[in-house]
């Protein structure tokens, strides 16, 4: 279709306006603002160049400590959460793949349902299930004889249980989405491959290794990347379930940025922290992208 450029632009314009006002303008404000000394509630605006970044990264200051405490905690969560999250959703998908309809549809919806709930609802529920010595989980565990009734677990007030609580809530909340991606990928595998291989006497582990895994490898890398980014952005769960505690041991980087800006009013410092966090996330993406490309080449060659 031959359309005059200005007509095409007219269609693009509404999006462009909204995008410039609500994404580009804040983005630029953030980049520029990180080079000033804004504080919420005052009128200070002196240009300080890269001083905020220097303070956060190199100087001995509370901003430095807050940033690296948050970064460390976030990396701990990435470390303990990514592998269980990916493995659990893969196992659930493999299980569902072998169940026949209509059961398959029923369980698929059941496992995926918690995805529709907000992080505040997840937190409200998990707090009351876990909080206090007489909580539902503590009493149930002691009835089953797993823990003794005299020494209930402080799920929200002791480590490593606070991390376990956040991890449990995150698994319950988010595992369904990635499971569905795997379910779809598994659906696309030709069933004749399974039949042919089982006639040849291939066991399930062998089928997994040589049929399933090569077919879902792209989904696998996508899920791994997605999960890593999501875990890195941990915010609501640690803010609401443990309030960053006990001490500050579950205070994530996002939460530290929130506190720097909203509680300590250091707007510019917080903006700089957010930009640094953006860089770290993009580094993760790039590293994993490069890794995936290399693996892809390797897979192509092997075929």
């Amino acid at each position: 279709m031959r359309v005059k450029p200005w007509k095409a632009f007219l269609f693009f314009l509404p999006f462009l306006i909204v995008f410039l006002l609500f994404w580009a303008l804040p983005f630029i404000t953030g980049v520029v603002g990180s080079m000033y000394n804004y504080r919420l509630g005052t009128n200070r605006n002196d240009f300080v160049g890269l001083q905020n970044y220097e303070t956060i990264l190199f100087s001995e200051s509370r901003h430095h400590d807050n940033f690296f405490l948050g970064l460390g905690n976030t990396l701990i969560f990435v470390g303990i959460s990514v592998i269980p999250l990916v493995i659990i959703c893969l196992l659930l998908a493999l299980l569902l793949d072998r169940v026949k309809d209509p059961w398959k549809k029923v369980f698929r919806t059941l496992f995926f349902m918690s995805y529709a709930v907000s992080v505040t609802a997840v937190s409200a529920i998990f707090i009351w299930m876990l909080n206090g010595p007489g909580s539902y989980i503590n009493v149930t565990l002691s009835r089953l004889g797993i823990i003794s009734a005299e020494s209930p677990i402080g799920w929200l007030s002791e480590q490593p249980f606070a991390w376990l609580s956040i991890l449990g809530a995150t698994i319950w909340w988010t595992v369904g989405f990635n499971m569905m991606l795997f379910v779809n990928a598994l659906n696309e595998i030709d069933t004749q491959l399974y039949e042919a291989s089982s006639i040849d006497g291939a066991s399930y582990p062998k089928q997994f290794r040589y049929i399933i895994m090569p077919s879902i490898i792209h989904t696998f890398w996508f899920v791994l990347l997605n999960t890593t980014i999501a875990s890195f952005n941990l915010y609501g769960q640690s803010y609401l379930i443990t309030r960053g505690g006990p001490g500050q041991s579950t205070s994530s980087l996002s939460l530290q940025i929130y506190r720097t800006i909203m509680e300590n009013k250091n707007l510019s410092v917080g903006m700089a922290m957010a930009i640094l966090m953006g860089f770290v996330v993009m580094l993760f993406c790039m590293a994993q992208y490069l890794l995936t490309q290399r693996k892809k080449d390797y897979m192509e060659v092997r075929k």
Partner: protein
Amino acid sequence: MRKKRVTQAALIGICLLISYFFLLPFLFMFFTSFKDMAESIGSSRLVPSVWSFSNYIDLLNDLTNVQIVRWLMNTLLTTILGVMLVVVVDTLAAYSLARLNLPGTGIILVAIVWIMSIPGIVTVFPAFYIAKNLNLVDSFIPLIFPYGANVLGVYMIHNFLRNFPKELEEAAFVDGANLMTILVKVVVPVIRPVLITLAFITFLNIYNDFLWPSLVISTNEMKTVTVGISSLVLGSNFTNPGMMMAATLVAVVPTLVLFVFLNRYIVQGVTNTGIK
């Protein structure tokens, strides 16, 4: 044959066991919301010994600061308007990119991919600072319009359209139909599945968003349900779990109902439109 049946039964058994873990938090919320205050604090039984509707009655009568009905109305209003904005604006933009040879299309598409990888935390606080300086805090404007800057939707619709033949549109164009008519009459019916997916994902995102509305809303009347529930969770003087679970239940029912009917669209959209 018999062996297969036994395997099926075993697999379903395992699924049922796992379902219990996925359902337990929902059951806990449901049952606790029907416990009166004394029982909801003191008892660790899942099912209430006496079923009490007092939490729901108190909620509806605004006896506490929990204005759940008002919050729900705020949320539904902002979510529906936000979804409409995203769908309209993104459809127009994607149409322009995929079909109208907009100059610079290649650069725009690359930019979109880069922008999608920048986490929201980079822009959310500056956006709050702008809203505050323009005195827009505690109004509906920041609760609706910022969601329109949705590059994911443009990307999804564009990818879907790109893989779809355009003969029908060309024919309509030759027949002298104007571009808007072609878009509404020919293109929109074709991209309907993507639009449903996009609308549904956006609905969940706006309805469940937490950080952004918690920054721009401070008064009780303007809260969304997500922010409202978070203020219950964080409020130190709020000690009635039954009431909190009742409020949470009211908050999650709309998305849950929608979800049970529409959940297949989420993943269809993700697999068909090349997000992965």
